[in-house]
């Protein structure tokens, strides 16, 4: 009988090589979080530039107070799923607040952003349907597609013409529906779906469109609703999915839409039905944070300024960027895995934490050092990140 874990020997060897080079880039311990942009790592105060804390709301007083109050009034956990004992007034309040924020009729809250994609995709599409997904989609989208049992067709990243070609030749979609899934901001490279091109394809070929606005909810658009909002094409997005673990600073996720049968997802979607509902404190802080995003649109402007400052700083250093559009996800291409790991360690030792992204988690086998910008970053922090990237990545070596 084969040892079940034996197949992971190459994976363990790869991880061991990472540990030999320095800190554990995929298991780093934050010893203390001081502010939305500062933490203690390896005993040192460190600038956090890889947290997806886009709006910097994690230490907002009103959010913390709301969380404390929910803990005291509702306890530590719900101990049940949404379809049993796990729906509290707080969950319904959050769904109503999100629906209002999004200007949509219906909203369903899930326990994580991952579960939101699984729950929405598997809730919408089934074995008779076809899902067309972008090649660079997040793993939660791939996993949701697999869970749905739908026929899965992958199209080239951000290539509306390639999608049109596949829709045209899939005349055998038969009685089933067609779901296309796009992301507002792609999490690794920071690029955006060319929404207008895809909407033209939608008009020609017909499909229902789900926008995963995980990295763009609260960030893009005049109303903070995401890329579809920014592009002025919001009415063409049939379903919006988002997460609370980025601009909302909590944990959980949501799906939303206007379809009159939307609520049926609650009775059909396994990731909604068969997991515990998000804890009262998480829901309360998310609720407060969504109100805050509506109340303080200036945070979006500050995030744009910070993102532009970091992007231009990196461009000025001559670094090879993940994409040529400014977004809060700013990725820098690196030569190979050992060099990227060495550079990541050098940055950490010099006092800045960023994400490391390696194949197969990246498109086209590229290695990345990925920054995520926060509205809470100061100019000085942004400038320090640029300075250290110049010393480490710009100089092409793994030390300062």
């Amino acid at each position, binding site marked *: 009988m084969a040892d079940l874990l034996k197949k992971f020997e190459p994976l363990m060897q790869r991880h061991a090589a990472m540990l030999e080079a320095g800190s554990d880039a995929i298991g780093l311990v934050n010893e203390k979080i001081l502010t939305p942009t500062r933490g203690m790592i390896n005993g040192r105060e460190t600038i956090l530039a890889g947290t997806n804390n886009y709006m910097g709301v994690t230490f907002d007083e009103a959010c913390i107070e709301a969380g404390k109050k929910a803990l005291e009034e509702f306890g530590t956990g719900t101990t049940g799923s949404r379809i049993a004992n796990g729906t509290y007034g707080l969950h319904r309040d959050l769904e109503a607040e999100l629906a209002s924020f999004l200007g949509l009729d219906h909203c369903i809250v899930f326990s994580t952003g991952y579960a939101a994609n699984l729950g929405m995709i598997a809730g919408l599409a089934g074995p008779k349907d*076809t899902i067309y997904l972008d*090649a660079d989609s997040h793993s939660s989208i791939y996993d949701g*597609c697999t869970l749905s049992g739908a*026929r*899965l*067709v*992958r199209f*080239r990243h951000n290539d509306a013409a390639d999608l049109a070609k*596949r829709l045209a*030749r*899939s005349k055998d979609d038969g009685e089933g529906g067609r779901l296309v899934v796009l992301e507002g901001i792609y999490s690794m490279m920071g690029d955006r779906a060319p929404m207008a091109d895809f909407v033209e394809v939608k008009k020609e070929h017909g499909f229902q469109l789900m926008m995963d606005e995980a990295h763009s909810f609260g960030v893009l658009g005049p109303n903070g609703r995401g890329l579809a909002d920014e592009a002025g094409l919001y009415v063409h997005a049939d379903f919006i999915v988002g997460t609370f673990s980025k601009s909302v600073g909590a944990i959980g996720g949501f799906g939303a839409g206007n379809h009159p049968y939307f609520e049926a997802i609650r009775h059909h979607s396994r990731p909604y039905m068969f997991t515990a509902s998000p804890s009262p404190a998480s829901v309360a802080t998310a609720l407060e944070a969504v109100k805050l995003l509506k109340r303080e649109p200036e945070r979006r402007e500050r995030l744009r300024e910070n993102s532009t400052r970091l992007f231009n700083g990196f461009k000025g250093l001559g670094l090879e960027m993940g994409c040529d559009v400014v977004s809060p996800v700013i990725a820098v291409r690196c030569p190979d895995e050992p060099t990227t790991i060495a550079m990541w360690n050098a940055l950490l030792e010099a006092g800045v934490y960023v994400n490391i992204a390696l*194949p*197969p988690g990246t*498109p086209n*086998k590229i290695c990345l050092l990925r920054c995520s910008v926060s509205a809470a970053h100061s100019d000085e922090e942004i400038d320090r990140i640029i300075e250290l990237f110049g010393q480490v990545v710009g100089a092409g070596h793994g030390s300062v």
Partner: protein
Amino acid sequence: MSASDEEILSRLKELLQKFNSKNIELTATTDISTDLNIDSVAVMDFIMEVEDAYDIDIPLNVLSETRTMRDLVKVVQGELG
């Protein structure tokens, strides 16, 4: 294999070559993922090349049961009808 299968196998070998960084000899029994030691994303990218070469769609669902080049030849034949 029929002559037609041989033609498809030959074309698939050509398409797979750019993912074959270790220059493994490609045969009908080559396991696309494990023999070439390529990850799931590379396998999906290879399949996209095959789709374009034959102007067909190969749904991702069939990949879990498509391990060897011979398996893939059957899938292509099936899609070509």
